[in-house]
């Protein structure tokens, strides 16, 4: 189970803020594989799963953005009714709390990848070790993404 890392960016909650960040990524030639925006009144946090984390990190830092990198779990999810429920139910039974989550499609559009962020990644990995779940690594996500 190799770690998948995402990059989180602090942004004021105002028009144009997302564009300012995606502009930096576009200019640096970085491909965004998945994203999630959460906001709270005056500010928000934008999370990205990208094809070149180091480069994205450098580019955003240089432009003065406040960022952080953290590990998430990437789990293959069946694109059928109950697909998400099967995973959610498993997490519930292991008492793992989801902080953030977003999904991305997989080739050939039959399955999807569920990205979940939990409080303690190491512990979650341990608890889910023997479960019938397929965890994807960064190269696997790049290869199997739709």
């Amino acid at each position, binding site marked *: 189970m190799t770690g998948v890392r995402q990059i*989180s960016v602090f*942004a*004021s909650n105002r028009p144009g803020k997302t564009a300012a960040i995606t502009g930096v990524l576009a200019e640096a030639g970085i491909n965004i594989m998945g994203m999630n925006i*959460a*906001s709270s009144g*005056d500010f928000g*946090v934008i999370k990205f799963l990208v094809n070149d984390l180091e480069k994205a990190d450098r580019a955003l830092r240089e432009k003065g953005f*406040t960022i*952080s990198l953290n590990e998430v779990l990437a789990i293959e999810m069946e694109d059928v009714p109950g697909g998400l429920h099967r995973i959610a139910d498993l997490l519930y039974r292991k008492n793992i709390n989801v902080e*953030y989550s977003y999904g991305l499609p997989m080739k050939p559009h039959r399955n999807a990848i569920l990205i979940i962020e939990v409080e303690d990644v190491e512990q979650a990995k341990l608890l889910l070790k023997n479960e019938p779940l397929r965890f994807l690594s960064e190269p696997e996500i790049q290869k199997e993404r739709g």
Partner: protein
Amino acid sequence: MIWNPAAEAVPLKERQSLQLERLRRIVDLAYHRVPFYRKSLDRIKLKPGHIKTLKDIEKLPFTTKDDLREGYPFGMFAVKLEEIVEFHTSSGTTGKPIVTGYTRGDIELWSEVMARALTMAGAGPQSIIQNAYGYGLFTGGLGTHYGARKIGAALVPISAGNTARQLQVMQDFGTTLLACTPSYSLYLAETAEEQAGGLRRLKLKSGCFGAEMWTERMRDEIERRLHLKALNIYGLTEVIGPGVAQECLRQSGLHIAEDHFFPEIISPETLRTCPEGESGELVLTTLTREGTPILRFRTKDITSLHREDCKCGRNSIKMARITGRSDDMLKVRGVLFFPSQIEKALLEIKGVEPHYQIILTRPHQLDEIEIQVETTRHIFSDEIKRLEELRSQIEKHLEHAINLRVKVTLVEPKKLPRSEGKAKRIVDNRQM
């Protein structure tokens, strides 16, 4: 090292008798040569001859910024223009500027007190002084220049601004003493940290930081990031410029050049003189200025005076770090506080940097106060709930510090203006 032991380390009695002699002379001179002083002394039927002891200074009326402004441009001069060799002015942001005129003797006096200040900060002929105070009508640049010249240090008259060049000179020349505003020193550190290689090659030993209010927390921050001894310097255009007082390497208050500038502390409300050690407004009398002598100038700066034999060998009276301005005190919903209290409280929270702005509004006939704090990587979390926790933690801490409910907003880094001169901390949008 002490630049002038005969002035900075003499028995108190000797200094006081010199002060009295000079006080009597300056009152006499001001009375006879400056119509403003003749009028104000006549009004209370006081003659220069009535000044017989140092305590008698309390009989003299105060001089305010407005008095000086009314004399614009040369009304407060005690000499003919042909004896003036240089002018300086206050920034004049709040009306007509205040003009101060220097005779040759005044420039010599200024060089002398700045020589004392730089020596107090550890400088000498072997030092390389980078003078990042602005040159021009502002006194910071030239005052430091004259002092550096006097002690024979190698001076870099780089003036304010152009951060990239400042950093290059600092590294390539091997600057040992940095002179600039405290906020600019942090800006320099921040810019340098972003460059590859950072600040490794610096030879800085000390810094003379002044021209704006700062705190002990900021001192810790500057010392940690620039690896130097951060020292407080104090002065004001109306009196002479920088050099009125300077902190020695002991960092326990600023030694006032009291043989030239006589200090008192008054209560800004009652205008009565406060006993030593009590906090109040600093009042200064120039004992030796020739061009524009000033009697009992109300500086509006809040500090306190302490007399002790300092371990540095000097026994000149010390003033504490300025904690506020009697006219800058903010009054919000009836509560009085100094902006510096906000800064102090902010810096008590781990990871928070001194980049903030205080915004005052009055949306519904009621004052609201918002503090914008930059979200740097030290406090950033990718979890919204953590950021919300931090925000309310800051709010609670500030509320506790100033007894006022405040709204805290987390903003992107460097959104707040970084000044190359004085930082703009307060935006007052209240319609009065």
